[in-house]
């Protein structure tokens, strides 16, 4: 199995760390992984994205033109990446601030309003974990226990007391995500 994922949003939304946690989770379950960030001026406030590949085989190119799954957290990223989802693939978006919505009918589209929820419940720092939870609900590519193992591995020890908050956020995300039918 190979899962080719793009995660895109604004710098500061935790896009790169979400990708990192996914990559670590893949590592924990013995998969081949690659994590390729956009490290340009984007990370200073514009759009940021990361390509993550989890595979049972050797990963050839970390640079991709099409994705099995796209996680989209802002409008410019939707415009850039909706067309890059492979037919039959998955697009997950947080609709916060969107004025145009996904239109493709040949892919599975899910909406997760994690940004709104996180702000309303004062849980902004775990917003990206809610989105990751949403992803795992509809595409269980890694097991939650491996995500937690990966988190433990990638977080410095001084942050380990936050692990349970992150686990909760994953489950919140699993409840928040819903399928969208494009007519």
């Amino acid at each position: 199995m190979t899962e080719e994922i793009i995660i895109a949003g604004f710098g500061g939304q935790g896009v790169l760390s979400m990708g990192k946690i996914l990559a670590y989770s893949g590592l924990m379950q013995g998969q081949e992984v690659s994590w390729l960030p956009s490290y340009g001026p984007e990370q200073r406030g514009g759009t940021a994205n990361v390509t993550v590949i989890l595979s049972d085989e050797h990963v050839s190119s970390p640079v991709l033109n099409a994705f099995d799954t796209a996680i989209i957290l802002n409008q410019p990223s939707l415009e850039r990446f909706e067309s890059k989802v492979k037919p039959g693939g998955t697009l997950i978006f947080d609709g916060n601030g969107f004025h145009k919505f996904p239109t493709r009918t040949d892919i599975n589209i899910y909406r997760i309003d994690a940004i709104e929820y996180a702000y309303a419940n004062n849980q902004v720092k775990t917003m990206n974990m809610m989105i990751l939870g949403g992803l795992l609900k509809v595409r269980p590519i890694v097991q939650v226990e491996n995500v937690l193992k990966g988190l433990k591995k990638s977080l410095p020890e001084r942050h380990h007391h936050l692990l349970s908050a992150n686990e909760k956020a994953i489950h919140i995300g699993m409840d928040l995500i819903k399928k969208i039918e494009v007519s």
Partner: protein
Amino acid sequence: MKKENKENEVRLMKGNEAIAHAAIRCGCDGYFGYPITPQSEILETLMEVEPWHTTGMVVLQAESETASINMVYGAAGCGKKAMTSSSSPGVSLMQEGISYMAGAELPCVVVNVMRGGPGLGTIQPSQADYFQTVKGGGHGDYKVITLAPASVQEMADFVGKAFDLAFKYRTPTFILADGVIGQMMEKVVLPPFKPRWTEEEIIAVAPWATLGKPAHRKPNVINSLRLEAWEMEELNLVLQGRYREIEKNEVLFEEINCEDANYILVAFGISARICQKTSELARAEGLKVGLIRPITLYPFPTEQIKKRAEQVKGMLSVELSAGQMVEDVRLAVNGKIPVEFYGRMGGIVPTPDEVLQALKDKLISKN
């Protein structure tokens, strides 16, 4: 101080971080550098690990790239394993020092994690320093051995290898990477720990090193200046002799899907990874496309490319530049078959399908 983890553990890290850990583990004596994107994690990681507490390795942020390379020069003159790293504009600043080190027959490792140029350029990935590196970026007739890693694992493996080659041939050796390989994370197993050389070991490996003059020999002098022309020619002949040895002994390359190929892509670093996927996409369409990946850019795998030119209908050199390595591919092929070029510049990285389309447009459709 951050703990160094278990041996043989599979870790996830950036190419730049792998370089730093590998440097400590291969017994490097000193790193001198100045931060620049996209390779700042090398210096940052070294500062975080603090190897001066464990192996005694010196890590120093110099005041500039010019200072860094001259600190490397000084350390190398004492037979120490010294290295620096930078990205394109910073490496341009180092060229004088590199030429001096070539002239003074000094080993060192220079890592260039290339970004888009010319000038201050962009911080995004590029491979446009191929000419600068393999054709001699500084003045005079010299060459530097150039290793081109295409994975995080190779970033880790090539540091020790680069030092071995540098000392074997008394020459600066480059690790020529690009922003993608530096910034991406992959699985990596770090090389085992090797202690730094003792003074006795240095004298055995590098009898030319300036470590104090014993009574039985003349002083060792490290210098690239020869006022007499005949002496300068003599030095040049020594260097050229070494370059011929390097060309004979040290060529490294990888071939993927070449056995039955009708077309071959030639690419190094991140471009080679992209082209590997292009080859997979092509084969899914029934097109027999292979890949030659030069691992050493100098010495270049001229003979292998020449051999494959007997078999295939055309080659496409794929680079993040306006077309540099393609000249060496053409020299190797020597007009036998068409050699075309596809590349993107300024920090743009092409996708695998883009390369496949270029291959179709430039070669396959013309046959």
